[in-house]
């Protein structure tokens, strides 16, 4: 069993290790290591296309994570008072949202958005005072942020709710008993108690959006996120520059995941 387990881990992590290793390759071949160098990191960071894609990715990740955290937390709080069958239905929908394959979400979102835009654009054009200046809804930043935000919201709901479930309900009663208004209780007791969950949810939402390729591929329109850029570059062959980008994305993601985990752990101890 140990050998099988070892084989599984090697199979999983060796390719990732090789990408990280070859990102430091001095030569330009992806298959033979010719000495240590960080030149490809410099090349990647000075490539205007890479920087454009990175800016797009960061903007989308930050916006969708903020939206997902805000609405996810609100939904988690509202679900506290939902009981019975309705609660079961909501729980099922949230877990399904996390488990549905990205490609299904991508295609479904694309079809839905295109259909809605086809409906709305003529109406917008008709009611707009200046006929030529009417805005045209298209795929792009908006659809990326919306699709990522919706998916990440399910993640945030699950994490914040787990944190709420671990919170002592009598703290809220104690706060009210001591004269705090419902808003005062939320601000002074509930929020500090569930904050580790909210922060961890935000970091996970950010990581998810920053890493996502499949959903973004369908709904990005003319925009290019970093994973989409990597994918399209690979068709022209894998260069050490791509390896360097991949290694940086991996590093940032790992850092955020570890941070999220650490925050949840620390919060558990203190709360």
């Amino acid at each position, binding site marked *: 069993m140990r050998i099988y387990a070892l084989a599984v881990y090697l199979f999983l992590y060796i390719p990732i290790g090789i990408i990280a290793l070859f990102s430091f390759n001095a030569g330009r071949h992806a298959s033979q290591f010719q000495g240590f160098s960080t030149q490809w990191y410099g090349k990647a960071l000075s490539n205007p296309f890479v920087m454009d894609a990175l800016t797009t990715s960061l903007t989308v990740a930050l916006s969708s994570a903020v939206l997902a955290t805000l609405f996810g937390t609100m939904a988690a709080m509202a679900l506290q008072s939902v009981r019975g069958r309705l609660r079961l239905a909501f729980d099922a929908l949230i877990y399904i949202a996390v488990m549905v394959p990205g490609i299904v979400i991508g295609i479904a979102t694309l079809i839905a958005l295109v259909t809605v835009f086809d409906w709305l654009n003529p109406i917008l054009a008709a009611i707009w005072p200046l006929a030529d200046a009417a805005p045209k809804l298209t795929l792009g930043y908006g659809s990326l942020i919306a699709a990522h935000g919706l998916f990440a919201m399910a993640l945030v709901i699950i994490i914040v709710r787990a944190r709420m479930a671990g919170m002592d309900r009598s703290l809220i009663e*104690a706060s009210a008993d001591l004269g705090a*208004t419902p808003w005062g*209780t939320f601000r002074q007791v509930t929020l500090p108690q569930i904050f580790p969950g909210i922060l961890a949810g935000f970091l996970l939402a950010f990581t998810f959006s920053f890493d996502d390729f499949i959903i973004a591929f369908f709904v990005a329109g003319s925009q290019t996120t970093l994973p989409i850029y990597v994918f399209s570059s690979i068709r022209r062959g894998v260069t050490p520059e791509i390896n360097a980008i991949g290694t940086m994305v991996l590093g940032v993601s790992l850092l955020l995941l570890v941070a999220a985990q650490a925050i949840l752990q620390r919060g558990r101890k*203190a709360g």
Partner: protein
Amino acid sequence: MESNLKPFSETQAAPIAELRGASKHYGAVVAAEGLNLAIRRGEFLSFLGPSGCGKTTALRMLAGFETPTSGDILLDGQRVNDVPPHQRPVNMVFQHYALFPHLTVAQNIGYGLRQRRPRPPETEIARAVDQALETVRMPGFGPRRIWEMSGGQQQRVALARAIVNQPKLLLLDEPMAALDKKLRREMQIELQTLQRQLGITFILVTHDQEEALSMSDRICIMRGGRIVQVGSPRELYDRPTTRYVADFVGKSNFFAGKVTKVAAGRTELAVAAGRQIAGVAPVDIAVGQTATASLRPEQIALSRETAGQTVPVEVINRIFLGEHTEYLVRNIDLGDFLVLVSRQAEASEGGFEPGDQAFASWTDGAALILSDD
């Protein structure tokens, strides 16, 4: 001392809080039914009963966490049914203290004062917090974190957090349940002292009869969502109105039977095998009804000669309790029962050994004839 000289005025006589026919139903489940109780200004009152008897529901209705399904809750003569907890001048010490883990001890204690509008200045809050810490004998603990405290210390902080607001009622929800026995006894004495010192009305919920008996001015005994009897510990011990109360408050021997004769101040009960027990019925019982005779172990005397209302017994077991000795004795008709003999009585009568034959006797008014519920 000054308050003793004041004339007995209307306001002092008016109850500080009242339950008027208060009921709480959850669908078909009845948590409390028709509770009527006037809480006196400055008293230490306990709700006593097993879990699920409605005592916590009564407390939570006073705090405002539960709204009565019917009936009224009054605070200082005002109906407060629809007043939410944060607007009621009452404070609660929660069973597991419910201290805010993200705040320091001082921030916890000052929490209530900081919610007031207009908000008092910080210097005033700090002074009040220090004084409260002084009151619960924890001076200097202000900057500590909650999780650094022992259970007993957390209990004191919870107490300080409540009393600093000078509430009209201090509600205590089984506050000693999480403490070990020795610490519990200490806290009981301290709570009692504190209550006298502050003059705040304390309302304690407990399932521990010893705790209720030793601390309270009055006890409200509950069962199945209803109030069974309200009285001082002595009243409940000496004059329980039901078998349930007699059983719950102190030890007693019970003999079931049927009422055969009711005369002025004297009720006769036919118990097993034609034996009669005569006693006082605190609540009127009709002839023919089933009832129970209750005899406290210390009201029964044990002797070697027969005199008055006696039954022959065999001594089964003996437990030495210091000032008293508790005997378990057996009568062929009545079964086993307990007799508590003082050291003094034993000196004149001589001790009894298991296997000895003796006579158990009691005075005519000693037995209480109680209805069964």
